[in-house]
């Protein structure tokens, strides 16, 4: 039982716990916070796997930026708990849903167990490779081999930002609301 194993199991348990609590919570804010917890644990695992840069990014961008955005939206919409969701759906339906999720996981685990893994994979921290996963190493790859995907992603990002603004923008003039589908129920503006 070396440090590696301890760190892994600790982080794994936290990650799974965070994820489970996230879906178990009725309050979306709590869900979001548990997700952040899970993400932080995952970031630790990234670092353990040599991805120092990625781990940092995950915490900064995901746990930091994106989840804040979520929280912001939850609060903007003033969602406290899920009691406005009405009665829960029938148990049978819920059961099937769990069953499929678990079945899927079991299948994937069986695959992982059955697969022949690369031999190097036995030790993670035991084989410190110089410079692996550093900012330099990742960015070298990113700006040479993967420059086009990167640029495309950038464009995607830009479009997403513009799109988000357009979508979320309040419809002020009646003309727009007329055009955007007459078969929708009457719109109630939330100010």
């Amino acid at each position, binding site marked *: 039982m070396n440090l590696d194993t301890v760190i892994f199991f600790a982080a794994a348990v936290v990650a799974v716990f965070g994820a489970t609590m996230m879906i178990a919570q009725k309050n979306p804010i709590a869900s979001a916070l548990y997700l952040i917890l899970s993400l932080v644990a995952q970031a630790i695992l990234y670092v353990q796997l040599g991805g120092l840069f990625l781990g940092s990014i995950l915490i900064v961008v995901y746990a930091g930026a994106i989840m804040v955005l979520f929280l912001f939206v939850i609060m903007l919409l003033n969602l406290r708990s899920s009691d406005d969701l009405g009665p829960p759906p029938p148990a049978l339906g819920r059961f099937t849903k769990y069953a*499929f*999720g678990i079945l899927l996981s079991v*299948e994937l685990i069986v*695959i992982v167990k059955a697969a022949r893994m690369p031999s190097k994979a036995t030790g993670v921290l035991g084989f410190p490779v110089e410079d692996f996963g550093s900012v330099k190493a990742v960015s070298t790859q990113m700006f040479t081999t993967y420059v086009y995907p990167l640029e495309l992603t950038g464009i995607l990002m830009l479009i997403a930002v513009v799109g988000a603004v357009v979508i979320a923008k309040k419809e002020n003039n009646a003309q727009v609301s007329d055009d955007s589908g007459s078969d929708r129920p009457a719109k109630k503006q939330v100010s």
Partner: protein
Amino acid sequence: MSEYLFLIPLLPLIGFLINGLLLGRLPRPVITIIACGSVALSLILSVMLFVELKSLPVDSRVIEQTLLPWISSGDFSVNIGFLLDPLSAVMILVVTGVGFLIHVYSVGYMAHDPGYGRFFAYLNLFTFAMLTLVLADNYLLMFVGWEGVGLCSYLLIGFWYHKKSASDAGKKAFIVNRIGDFGFLIGLFIIFWNVGSLEFDVVMKQAPLVFAAGGALITTACLMLFLGATGKSAQIPLYVWLPDAMEGPTPVSALIHAATMVTAGVYMIARSSSLFVLAPDALMVIAIIGACTALFAATIGLAQNDIKRVLAYSTVSQLGYMFLACGVAAFSAGIFHLMTHAFFKALLFLGAGSVIHAMSDEQDMRNMGGLKKHLPITFMTMFVATLAISGIPGFSGFFSKDEILWKAFSSDHGHVIFWVIGVATAGLTAFYMFRLIYLTFYGNERMSDEAKHHLHESPKSMTVPLMVLAVLSLVGGLVGMPHIFGVTNYFEEWLGPVMAGAHEPVSHALASGGGDASMEWLLMGLSVALVAVCIFLAYYFYRKNLKATTSLAEKLSGLRTLLVNKYYVDEVYGALVVRPTVYFSVFLWKIIDVIVIDGCINGMARLGGDISDTLRHSQSGRLRNYATIFAAGVVVLVAYFVFG
């Protein structure tokens, strides 16, 4: 001269085209000149060609002219070509001659009709079709004329189309004729696929070689052709259209439904005599049908009150006579009767037309009477015709009828029963014809005062044709006097070269010598005696003692009702053929088409729709359901691809 043969049918066609295309735009005199002129020219040409034909040696009396190829397909080929031989020569003379007279008559008869131009156009078209029929050198072109005259008959019967009865009658005529045409076509098919040609000369030459005499094939072919003839010539079972056809203008009845078109069946059988002699069974059927029709129609004629209907049934009866002649292989006798019948029956119809004209379109004989002094010329001429049709010795009808009776008795195909039926028919004919004369021209004047006021003799254009026809009825029979009179039967001799087996019965009769001759005298005497008795009976019942008629009619009221209603044949046909067909058609349409077939198809469509309707509920619109199904799919696919 012979190269102008094609002009004979073409001239009336030109007349039709001019009058038809310039429908009603021409002044009446011009129409008259075109219509009558074209037929007159045809008549002149016919006479000239007849003379030319006569000048040829007996064995080569044939003039042929091929105009253009018509249909050819593989080994089938038919030309539009004309053939003038003694038989068609007689026919064109009858057609153009009687036709011309009737054209002239029509000028007066139709003078006040608004459809004057149309009438003459149709009449010319009819003349064209009839001439095509008789001049055709092959069966198919004959069929053209055959259908053509049917069409004109349809158009002319329904000439006063605003009368429903008229257009009904026209339609009935056409459809009944079509049934006959169906038989004609089948006959043609059998002939063509066995002989390989439809040309008359080829067929007549080849027929004895390819068909086994008396075989089923030739018998079927002949019976099919005869079915065609029964349609056109109004024989049992297809005679029903002819009495109704009297809805047409009277000149039409005279031309089409007495003198020419209805005799086309007789002409066709005479033309195909070489085929028919190969099928004795078919001949017997023809003789039986002819005899039955003759008697049957004559009995109906006894009880009719419409002057034209009496004549119509008389026509059916006389046509039965001609078929009887054909059925006993006495084709030339049939044609001879055809010719004389054309004269006197046309005359009778025209006379009846003159009466109707004078009576302001009254046709019921019960409302006539005593017209003798008002219509002297009409009376005289009609009386001549009545004597002719009754078979009074010396008149044309006597010679032709007598020849048929003798042949029915003496021919190899004949039988004494045929003779008995023939004589009985002759007696009935004499009775109802004199009944007509007495009811119409003698006795009290039973018409209304107004009608009486309008009584007048017809104009010259109508009486002159009557007189010409009367002369022909009187002397027309002289060309075919029986051998026992010690003179040559010119008519039979003339037709000899074209008639199959024509010589046979003659030689038979001659060979048997005096015994047969005395027999012939005896039979002739018997029939004349019967006719005389019948005329007397008619005189007794309808002139002398009208009370006896009514009492007799009361005694025989059942029979009388049966006769007045024409044995209910129309009703039976309606119940057995027409109505079931219509009901069956409605069944096919409403049940089979709409419910069964369309039901299946719409049902399939509805099934598809219903299935989709059920399935679309799986599209609940709930994202999580879709996701669940998606997950299930992934589970199953992974299971299949990885563990399967």
